[in-house]
């Protein structure tokens, strides 16, 4: 195998003391930006970028990608311990991760999250290693109708899960779509819903919304509930981690499903956030333990984490091979490639094998380094939980607002964060689910662009979504998923089998 030979050559490039040291530094910085809500991987990479100008491209990309892995891992820590996602892609981890922590299983939740994330990342890299050529050709078959079908599928797999009240879910989704349309419209080139305010030109960043809804909103609730912090003590002992590791194979279905969803969404490129939502949605729908979801089910942690990291890793491939970034962070790194004098595109693999395979080899090593380091930092973050809420509460508020500031260094963003904090509080009080809003905000405008591009292509005919077997299959799958409750009911009637009926579980 050609690719394996190249990979070993890549290990030769990546396995130097200098590069391993860069990985350590990158991962540690990444964990730091990942833990702070708002200050996400894209910001971290942007800030670090100027330092890499004088470095050799391989070293530079190793530093930046390691930071990315660290941030992906760090984002889950706060999701589980504080119910405040450090990264938008770890929103879905809060659904079951935080309930687990509340029940005194913080160590298990964290270990499950990190180990399954490591697994997802590993699958992602293996796919890149083995199938790079094939995947690149496959990705080229994707055009706007296929993109729309993929977003539709992501949405379909998550929709209807909130159970409690379909009308409230619908309101939440529609608000998300409305917020997603604010700002410049790619298709018409005009501004929408800015009402003449310059502050709204940029649209509403989903980072800000996540900080508000989860960070500030959560704190407001905590305050009302009596200034008691709901995080739980987490001591990481090696035996605890090993015990979790031993239990991990039991969840092989969730691991494999999560990895596949992740790799698929990373390549197509739906991005890690959509991938984690989709994986959680699918797990909740089809798992044998679906009744426990939302109450602290380990599978509800494993599913989104595996997909999140699978997608984050797999997104590197379209970036390198096609020049289309699969995530916001990949977009920033692509700018870096051009500055270092590399042209992303199909020829990069042939012209700069040292760079490409060095990077791929470093992804194997970097993720191992990240899993070890992130497990090591857990006691540190867990110690924070022992500090009285009266002290740590205000600190988290400050951190949230600093995070909101770093998104775009603009003052109105702080007000938006505050506003969405109130929205989050009201939503929780009135029992509206917030997750559909976040998902609609993240993929809403992309889905809209893809749909309108498709309509331009077909001059208004919906038949374009069944024009070839690829798009037809995805569309059919999505429609099946949307109408799944009907099918489930039908199957139950006809065969009398208890099927995948979703239990009404509150999705916070």
């Amino acid at each position, binding site marked *: 195998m050609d690719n394996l030979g190249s990979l070993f050559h890549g290990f030769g490039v990546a396995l130097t003391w200098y590069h391993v040291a860069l990985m350590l530094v990158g991962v540690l910085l990444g964990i730091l930006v990942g833990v702070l809500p708002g200050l996400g991987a894209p910001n971290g990479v942007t800030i670090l970028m100027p330092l890499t*100008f004088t470095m050799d491209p391989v070293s530079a990309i190793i530093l930046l990608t390691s930071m990315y892995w660290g941030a992906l891992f760090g984002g889950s820590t706060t999701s589980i311990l504080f119910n405040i996602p450090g990264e938008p892609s770890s929103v879905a981890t809060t659904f079951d991760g935080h309930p687990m922590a509340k029940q005194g299983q913080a160590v298990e939740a964290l270990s499950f999250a990190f180990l399954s994330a490591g697994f997802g990342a590993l699958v992602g890299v293996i796919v890149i290693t083995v199938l790079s050529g094939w995947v690149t050709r496959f990705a080229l078959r994707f*055009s706007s109708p296929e993109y729309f079908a993929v977003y539709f599928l992501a949405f379909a797999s998550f929709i209807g899960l909130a159970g409690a009240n379909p009308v409230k879910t619908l309101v939440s989704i529609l608000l998300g779509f409305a917020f997603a349309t604010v700002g410049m419209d*790619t298709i018409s*080139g005009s*501004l929408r819903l*800015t009402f003449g305010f310059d502050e709204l030109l940029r649209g509403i960043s989903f980072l800000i919304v996540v900080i508000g809804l989860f960070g500030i909103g959560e704190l407001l609730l905590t305050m009302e509930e009596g200034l008691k912090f709901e995080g739980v003590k987490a001591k990481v002992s090696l035996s605890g981690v090993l015990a979790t590791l031993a239990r991990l194979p039991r969840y092989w279905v969730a691991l494999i499903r999560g990895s596949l969803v992740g790799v698929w969404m990373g390549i197509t490129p739906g991005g890690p956030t959509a991938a984690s939502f989709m994986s959680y949605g699918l797990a909740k729908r089809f798992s044998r333990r679906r009744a426990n979801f939302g109450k602290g089910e380990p599978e509800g942690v494993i599913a989104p984490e595996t997909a999140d990291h699978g997608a984050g890793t797999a997104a590197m491939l379209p970036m390198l091979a096609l*020049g*289309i970034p699969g995530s916001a962070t990949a977009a*920033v790194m692509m700018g870096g490639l051009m500055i270092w004098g590399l042209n992303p595109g199909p020829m990069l693999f042939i012209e700069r094998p040292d760079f490409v395979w060095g990077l791929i080899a470093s992804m194997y090593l970097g993720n191992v380094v990240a899993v070890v380091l992130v497990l090591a930092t857990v006691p540190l973050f867990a110690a924070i939980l022992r500090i009285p809420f009266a002290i740590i509460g205000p600190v988290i508020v400050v951190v949230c607002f600093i995070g909101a500031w770093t998104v775009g260094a603009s003052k109105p963003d702080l007000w938006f964060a505050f506003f969405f904090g109130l929205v989050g509080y009201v939503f929780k009080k009135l029992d509206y689910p917030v997750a559909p809003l976040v998902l609609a905000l993240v993929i809403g405008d992309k889905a809209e662009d893809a749909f309108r*591009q498709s309509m331009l292509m077909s001059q208004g005919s919906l038949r374009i979504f069944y024009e070839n077997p690829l798009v037809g299959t995805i569309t059919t799958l999505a429609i099946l998923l949307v109408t799944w409750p009907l099918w489930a009911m039908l199957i139950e009637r006809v065969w009398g089998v208890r099927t995948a009926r979703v239990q009404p579980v509150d999705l916070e």
Partner: protein
Amino acid sequence: MRLAVIVAAVAALGASPAPLSAQEWKPTKPVEFVGAAGPGGGTDIFARAVQLAIQNHKLIDQPILVANKGGGSGAEAFVYVKAATGDPHKLVFGTSNLYTLPMVAKVAFKHTDFLPVAAMVFDEFMLWVKGDAPYSDYKSYTAAAKSANGTYKMAGALSKDTDQTLTRYIEKDTGAKFIYIPYRSGGEASVQLSGGHANSHVNNPSESVGHWKAGQVKPLCVFAKERMPKGAKVTETQGWSDIPTCKEQGAGIEEYQMPRTVSLPPGSPQAAVEFWAGVFKKVSETPEWKEYLERTAQTGRYMAGADLKAFIETDEKRTRKVYEDEGWLVN
């Protein structure tokens, strides 16, 4: 070797006498380069290339921060820098969107609000088709598009911007009709063409070079007065200079280029405008800059002062005319 070149260049720069005037202005705090586009795009790379040259040759004493404010197709950056009235430590890096954006979107700035410092480089536009397409030049492609009765798809970056404007020029020139499909960036448009989901696009060279090398797309011609300068081969057989101009192939479009511009906020002192113009002039003479131009296949042309003002006035009028005909004008 490369070090030696840089050292030599630094020595040369040091030797050139710096113009010292009585009311000289110098940055006294960290400087912000604000890019009017998202990270990773042409504007970001432009700003960072300038930053790199300034840092390597220590052309100013203060640190430089590159920030991208790409919201509202870059309007965010202009609004932000406009708000920093009288502070020449904030510079906005843009393209012709400095004067085209206020025409198509209701934004709170006009191009006359800013003090243009310099245009440093002009990005070329090329007509690209799929690598295995049967067309060999401008005429054969547009003739095929014309006989296809408006079913050919032209992919491009953004709406009511340079790509769509050029598409309209081509339509007017040849009578062909295209379905213009806007994507978020030229890179996305290029992938769509490689995958055969569009018939052509008018990307800048740097946006499609990767796909050209792999033979997935090919340039038919460049919308310039003359061919691009000789350089290294890009593909096995061809370099940028081997691409004929569209005019050679009988196109009625003389040239179409996009300037990359740097401007200061309103109310900045004239001394600051001159200071920055001087710095950018020096930047345009560094080896880093030559490397940047070659890598991105752009045409380096330094323009400042009255020349720049006149250029902007002419180009603004010309574009306004097209936008008016298309019904895109809002201001």
